[in-house]
């Protein structure tokens, strides 16, 4: 009954939605407002103004850098939330943690992960550092790093895998992404007078690139730590 009712309602909703999107500016046309206004400006001037060949990156780090600043805060928020939810309390319920079954991964899996690990690492670093010329960037590379950490956690024993994350400085490393972002932004503020300002003239281009790389590295490492940490927390580890 409930399902049928839901279905009817959703069909009605779908009709409304379809009716509305049908009237949108035509898909794929180069004359839509979406294409001709702000987007066109980026395509026109992005490469020149930001020194980045990848316009998506130039939007993420330059034009809309503040969004990305918020974005790294969102993942840190998620990490803090997961830590707050999953740690610090004794479970009173019916399902003891002991039921988590530890099955040793097969030899094949272990071998392949170990062999691939260095390659994944190198590729991830490449993706992070080359974000402004090729597709990629901090998030993409960070995800790879995080995936690597997760894979290693699965094949290594508890003791070994716990060394993947630096225990002593973890409380700083896990928030390194927003911290680098803010630090670089503030550098722009105090040197040139605007938050997240990157120098645009040719002489200082190298400096600007260094700042961008710093941010990318921060996002990459910070993202990877967050992914690894969330995974470990969900598995009942610290």
């Amino acid at each position, binding site marked *: 009954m409930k399902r049928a009712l839901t279905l009817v309602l959703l069909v009605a909703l*779908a009709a409304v939605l379809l009716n509305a*999107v049908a009237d949108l500016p035509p898909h794929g046309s180069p004359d839509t407002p979406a294409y001709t206004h702000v987007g066109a400006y980026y395509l026109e001037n992005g490469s020149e103004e930001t020194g980045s060949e990848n316009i*998506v990156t130039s939007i993420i780090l330059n034009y809309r850098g503040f969004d990305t600043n918020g974005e790294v805060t969102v993942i840190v928020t998620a990490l803090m939330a997961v830590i707050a939810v999953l740690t610090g309390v004794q*479970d009173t319920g*019916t399902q003891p943690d002991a039921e988590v079954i530890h099955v040793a991964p097969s030899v094949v899996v272990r071998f392949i992960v170990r062999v691939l690990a260095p390659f994944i690492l190198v590729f991830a670093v490449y993706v992070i550092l080359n974000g402004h*010329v090729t597709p990629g960037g901090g998030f993409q590379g960070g995800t790879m790093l995080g995936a690597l950490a997760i894979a290693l956690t699965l094949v290594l024993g508890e003791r070994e895998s716990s060394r993947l994350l630096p225990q002593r400085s973890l409380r700083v490393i896990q928030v390194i992404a927003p911290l680098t972002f803010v630090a670089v932004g503030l550098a722009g503020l105090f040197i040139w007078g605007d938050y997240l300002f990157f120098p645009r003239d040719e002489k200082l281009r190298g400096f600007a690139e260094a700042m961008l790389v710093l941010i990318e590295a921060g996002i990459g490492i910070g993202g990877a730590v967050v992914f690894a940490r969330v995974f470990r927390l969900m598995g009942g580890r610290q």
Partner: protein
Amino acid sequence: MIDLLWDNLDYAASMVLFCIGLYAVITRNNLIKKFMGLNIMETAIFAFIVALGVVDGGNAPIMGEGAAKPFINPLPQALILTGIVVAVSTTALALSLVIRIWRQCGTIEADELREAE
């Protein structure tokens, strides 16, 4: 109407996907499945926004040698990159809540949980 819809097929598809996701959120009893429905909805919206940037015959917006116009609108892509991270973050939190609920109550079926309350 149908012609217009056919032209905007990408948009239409994402709307349908959105409704499918919403259906799952409303009708599924299992909390994880409920949340998967939400993920479908997220994907639908992301697909919709990314589709806004598409230009017929467009190339990836990467300048440099050999790059040829027209380029695809880079802004929606940049936005959705952020959107995806937000979605991942929400999912992480939702899953950890589900884990806690499982440990506390021994079930993640919505109706059984309501009874337990």
